[in-house]
């Protein structure tokens, strides 16, 4: 084995990389590599799911995170496969296109010396004496038949005849097969490029909206937002979406699935900039709403108790509907209320909400059913510094109690506050009062803008067309030769050669042979 130099190795690697086999393997590998993305929550699509994963399984999550399993589609290994596939395809398509371009303009190949060696071959002796005019006529007839079957046709002088008068017919068809093949690959490259580049102009954002409240498509309004690389805030289409009503239907017939939600519907009102009236629409799970170049998906939902806090004089100092995040299937929910202003000290409350409150044997509360049957909110109250006045942003879903004092709940000697709808209870230390004014529902929406959709759809169609051409257009060569037998009669020879898989080749040769000598056979 001769030693390969550096250039030799580079050339060998390049040839391996750009071979069709490697491209196919990379494609399969890409599909496999995408699988973890649907098994493990992804930071871009489900940031809370990732946090939850870390909470439930911190060790496993750390291992997965080091493997970038929470960012599969932007991970080093996924990108490596992606880029290699890209290079492989481009490196394969360019030389093949050049090759095909030359082949498209080249004449069909010289008639082989021995047609009997071709995979399909027929020879027929006919009862006609050889003569120059008959030969010319037969060549003409062969060319006509082949042309009509959309072959590219040429004649070549027979090597055995020094006068050059006798000729053979060489024909080729099915150039579209390779064209289709190339189209397929180019469109595949197109899809990869569209996703890699076009994805950079997209964005995904999440926002929790309580019934009766409105989300406006500006960057500030999102709870979380993942922009593409080339995204700019001014790309957000201005529209507003008001959650009018969120309805849930529960299974009430089947005792085994009692309380399972069977349908979620968010009735929304959408308004464009400049129009005073909105139009109503509905969003369901897997039935997103298309608005302003975005798709709005329904992600999750829960309860948002309406809390009113008054100071000791009875003046309302705080009123809000607070989304409580569901913790279990019966929607036991956890929420945080922050009252920064209006009381003699800042108040924070960590609350549990039970839509159908029940008491376990050990005295703990739990929710027995997800719908509102006997709703109850309990609060542990903290006073002190909410940490909002240092200027550093804080999550609305967590309460930093490091500078606060717990004044109700376990260890304080004062029971947690318990509130049913319409009920008011006093805060400790004469701070004021808290009322559970009502209970609303919230929906969390995912707003996604994907400018690649149209392009991907277009390329997918091209892929299918290219694949169909590459699979179903046979590429074959046919030849017709006129020989003389020992008795001076004509022997007509036909042969065919397929390039690639072609089950119709034998039939095509037989058909040509029959039609070409039909005037002799008819005479018989």
């Amino acid at each position, binding site marked *: 084995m001769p030693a390969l130099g550096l250039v030799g190795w580079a050339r060998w690697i390049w040839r391996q990389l750009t071979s069709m086999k490697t491209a196919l393997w990379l494609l399969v590998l890409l599909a496999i590599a995408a699988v973890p993305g649907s098994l493990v929550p992804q930071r871009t699509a489900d940031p809370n799911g990732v946090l939850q994963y870390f909470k439930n399984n911190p060790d496993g999550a750390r291992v997965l995170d080091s493997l*970038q399993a929470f*960012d599969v589609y*932007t*991970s*080093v290994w996924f*990108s490596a496969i992606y*880029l290699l596939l890209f290079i492989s395809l481009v490196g394969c398509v360019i030389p093949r296109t050049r090759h095909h371009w030359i082949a498209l303009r080249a004449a069909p190949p010289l008639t082989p010396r021995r047609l009997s060696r071709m995979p399909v071959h027929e020879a027929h002796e006919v009862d006609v004496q050889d003569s120059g005019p008959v030969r010319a006529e037969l060549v003409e007839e062969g060319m006509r038949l082949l042309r009509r079957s959309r072959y590219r046709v040429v004649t070549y002088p027979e090597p055995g005849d020094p006068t050059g008068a006798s000729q053979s017919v060489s024909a080729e068809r099915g150039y579209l097969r390779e064209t289709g093949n190339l189209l397929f690959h180019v469109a595949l490259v197109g899809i990869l490029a569209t996703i890699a580049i076009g994805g950079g102009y997209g964005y995904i954002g999440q926002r929790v909206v309580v019934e*009766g*409240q*409105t*989300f*406006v*498509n*500006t*960057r*500030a*309004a999102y709870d979380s937002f993942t922009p593409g*690389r080339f995204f700019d*805030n*001014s790309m*957000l289409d*201005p*529209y*507003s979406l*008001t959650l009018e009503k969120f309805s849930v239907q529960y299974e009430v017939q089947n005792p085994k699935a009692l309380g399972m939600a069977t349908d979620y519907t968010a009735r929304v009102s959408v*308004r464009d*900039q400049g129009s005073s009236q909105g139009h109503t629409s509905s969003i369901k799970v897997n039935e997103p709403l298309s608005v302003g170049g975005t798709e709005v998906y329904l992600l999750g939902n829960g309860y948002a108790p309406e809390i*009113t*806090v008054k100071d000791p004089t009875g003046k*309302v*100092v*705080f*009123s*809000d509907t607070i989304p409580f995040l569901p913790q279990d299937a019966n929607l036991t929910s956890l929420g945080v209320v*922050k009252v*920064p*202003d*209006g009381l003699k000290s800042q108040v924070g409350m960590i609350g549990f909400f039970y839509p159908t409150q029940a008491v376990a044997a050990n005295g703990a509360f739990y929710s027995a059913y997800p719908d509102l049957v006997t709703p109850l909110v309990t609060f542990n109250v903290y006073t002190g510094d909410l*940490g*909002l*006045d*240092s*200027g*550093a*942003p*804080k999550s*609305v879903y967590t309460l930093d109690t490091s500078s606060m004092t717990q004044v109700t709940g376990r260890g304080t000697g004062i029971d947690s506050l318990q509130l049913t709808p319409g009920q008011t209870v006093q805060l400790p230390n004469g701070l004021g009062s808290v009322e559970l004014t009502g209970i609303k529902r919230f929906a969390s929406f995912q707003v996604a803008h994907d400018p690649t959709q149209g392009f991907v759809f277009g390329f997918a169609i091209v892929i299918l067309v290219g694949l169909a051409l590459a699979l179903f257009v046979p590429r074959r060569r046919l030849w017709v030769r006129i020989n003389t037998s020992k008795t001076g009669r004509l022997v007509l020879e036909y042969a065919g050669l397929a390039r690639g898989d072609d089950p119709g080749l034998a039939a095509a040769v037989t058909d040509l042979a029959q039609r070409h000598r039909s005037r002799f056979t008819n005479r018989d």
Partner: protein
Amino acid sequence: MNAHARLWSALAVFSTGLIVLSGCVGGSGDDLTKVRPSYSTVGPVTEIARADRANPVQFSGTLDNGETASSTDWAGKVLVVNFWYAGCAPCRAEAPDLEAVYSEFKDQGVMFVGVNVRDQAGTAQSFAATFGITYPSFLDANVGSIQLAFAGTVAPNVVPTTVVLDREGRVASRIVGQLESRSILQTLLRDTLAESP
């Protein structure tokens, strides 16, 4: 993540190279500077030259005191619109500065108005009481019409965002994020007031 970022920046450099190269062929290397000659963005502050301002922003809604108000109520004044909510820490940090600039300029044809994007009346009024805010705020959490009116090119992209409208109601400048010092807003207001009516 880092390696990935590096990979992409390599690609970005490569494609930028391509764009630059193709730009050389056309001989129009100055195009980038011609795109937005009048939008000068220094840090979080965007100023828009008079000739390039978009149409006047028109809006109306309900204030925290229960009254309704509309942009036309302040026609002819320079209007400062501040997007905020009570639980927003940077909003709390900048509130005293906003009030100070307001009391300095309110007699010079300047009006301030807040747009509360998350709270209801009680919460908003308690905030105003804490910081001694004397200008009104729209309650926009339920309706969203004022955020919608400002959405688009020079949108309030974070909370807080402070927008200065000129006498004709067009966006003249925008401060994204917490007001870092009073002097920034003071300068913007002086510039806008200096424009001949």
